[in-house]
């Protein structure tokens, strides 16, 4: 049974539509990320669930109950804000106790629950401090403890790690996931960081310009993107504009600059002659010496290495293909071919060749 159900939800601010007809179900115990660039509507979607804004059209149901007219304080939802929004005039313990006091629990029960939560977020001794006396990471944990203390039905998080540095962010990703799993609480997580979404989520909803682009587990989003936008937003990718030649076994034959390539179709087979895009991840490419014998199983294009970016354990080599386009190849740091000015052949498997519509669907006004 789905905990949260968006049904054709539209949110307009004046003439601007922040959300255009979103339909989405979040399952019990699931960790779902709303991923997209700023302005894609992900935060609006979260605030609609929390009740801080109301839909212009459509309905949002929690546990099957339409939330129209239910104010935020009656929704029983824990929320973690990007800037934490801790109450500066209250101590850490008082912050965590806030939701419990609003529910008129007894002082002893509140104290026990606060201690339990501070232990859960691994800040057992900081109950007496004020938020201003904590580091960013500690404030983040307090915000999480406060959101969970009153045993909410749902947990919503709006870019909760945005203000932290990289190391702490990676650590907190693991922490948040551990806590979420141990409580089994249904969670909606808003982020613009695709790495974060992939590391934490059961499913990712990729959003763009107020629409849901694609919904699925992280592997599916990364390996089988359904649109140019998703392919480009999640991970690195090189695009080649191609024309369809026809079907060949379970592959599709396409041609780029006169060179035939084999690709995996992502949907219905497009007609011969159709303009499409081939998308390839950097790690799918291998560099070969230009003179080496060609493997007929692989797609292969000749080119010149024009740039090499060193990243410690690996390098990214930019190759200008003889047909004109450039592609980015990820290879080992000691790959002798990945040097500026080297003639190479770029090869990759048909199974790693994603075939996408050349243009994303035009925006409805």
């Amino acid at each position, binding site marked *: 049974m789905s905990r949260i159900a968006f049904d054709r939800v539209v949110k307009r601010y004046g003439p601007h539509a922040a959300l255009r007809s979103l339909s989405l179900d979040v399952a019990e115990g699931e960790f779902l990320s709303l991923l997209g660039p700023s302005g894609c509507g992900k935060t609006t979607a979260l605030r609609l669930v*929390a009740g*801080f804004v109301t839909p212009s059209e459509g309905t949002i149901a929690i546990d099957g109950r339409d939330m129209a007219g239910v*104010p*935020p*304080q009656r*929704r*029983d*939802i*824990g*929320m973690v*804000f990007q*800037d*934490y*929004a*801790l*109450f*500066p*005039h209250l101590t850490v313990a008082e912050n965590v106790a*806030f*939701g419990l006091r*609003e*529910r008129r629990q007894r002082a002893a029960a509140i104290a026990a629950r606060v201690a339990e939560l501070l232990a859960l977020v691994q800040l057992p001794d900081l109950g007496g401090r004020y*938020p*201003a006396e904590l580091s*960013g990471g500690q*404030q983040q944990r307090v915000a999480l403890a*406060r*959101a969970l203390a*009153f045993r909410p039905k749902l947990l919503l998080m709006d870019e909760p790690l945005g203000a932290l540095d990289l190391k702490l962010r990676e650590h907190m990703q693991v922490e948040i996931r551990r806590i979420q799993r141990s409580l089994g609480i249904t969670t909606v997580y808003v982020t613009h960081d695709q790495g974060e979404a992939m590391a934490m989520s059961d499913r990712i909803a990729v959003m763009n310009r107020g629409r849901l682009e694609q919904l699925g587990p992280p592997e599916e989003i990364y390996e089988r993107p359904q649109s140019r936008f998703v392919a480009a937003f999640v991970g690195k990718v090189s695009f080649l504009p191609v024309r369809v030649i026809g079907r060949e076994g379970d592959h599709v034959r396409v041609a780029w600059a006169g060179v035939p390539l084999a690709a995996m179709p992502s949907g219905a087979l497009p007609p011969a002659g159709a303009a499409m895009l081939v998308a390839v991840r950097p790690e799918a490419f291998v560099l070969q010496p230009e003179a080496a014998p060609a493997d007929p199983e692989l797609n292969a294009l000749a080119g010149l290495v024009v740039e090499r970016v060193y990243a410690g354990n690996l390098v990214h080599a930019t190759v200008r293909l003889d047909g004109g386009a450039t592609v980015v190849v990820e290879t080992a740091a000691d790959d002798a071919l990945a040097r500026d000015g080297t003639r190479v052949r770029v090869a990759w498997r048909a199974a790693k060749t994603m075939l996408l519509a050349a243009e994303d669907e035009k925006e409805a006004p």
Partner: protein
Amino acid sequence: MSGGGRIGRVAAGAFLAALYLFLFAPLLVVAGASLGGGDRPYVRFPPDTWSLEWYRRMPPGYLESLQVSALLAAATAVAALFLAVPAALALVRGRFPGRRLAGVMLRAPLQIPYVVTGIAFLQTYYLVGGAVGLNLRGHPVGLLLGHVFLATPYAIGALVAVLERFPPRLEEAAQGLGASGWRVFRRVTLPLIAPGIYAGGLYAFIVSFGEVPVALFLGGPGVTTFPVQVFAAMQFDFSPSLLAISTLTLIVSLVLLLALQRLIGIDTLLRAGGGRR
């Protein structure tokens, strides 16, 4: 470098000393002269004799007017705050057409000379008196209305300044945790705007307590404020006891201010109203 720094510090110290002397010299002269004693219609500083005589011979009218002023100023501060808190919330949070205009209008009393305000209120009271027989001139409520008019913009200014630094998500966070509108105000908004309430209340008190023109127009027998009393005494029957009561007022003001500072801790409150980090 260090030599230049020392010269700089000495110069800065000398400048500060001169500034404080300039600001406080008149007060010191009044306080010193009040200890002279004897009968003479002029001020002498430093006094040639030392005595508390003028403190003992203080006319009772002074103390009465001081009491009137203190009560009036306190009532003005409370009333101004009751108007200023919702007004400031609307000005900072509200999303309604004409919000900027409303802000200008609410600050307008600051632009009007006190004398003009006094005359305007007096004329209005005459009109009201003529129409319904309710005479507000010389009535404490009439004076209170005038002072609330003068003082409210100051209280609004102090509260708007605090509210504009208020982290916007805090109220949503409280709501999400289960607090209804009134509970959000009581547990989050009010504690966080407290510095603005104290500062705004203090401004309102000071405006009311020190103001002459409006109190001159709107006061009357029984509602003579302290500054009006002093003003009249200076004009018509100077008595050295004026120096004594002025000094007393000065001391009481200072003690009150220090007590407030100690009690509330202006610094911690400013921090509480501050940001997230």
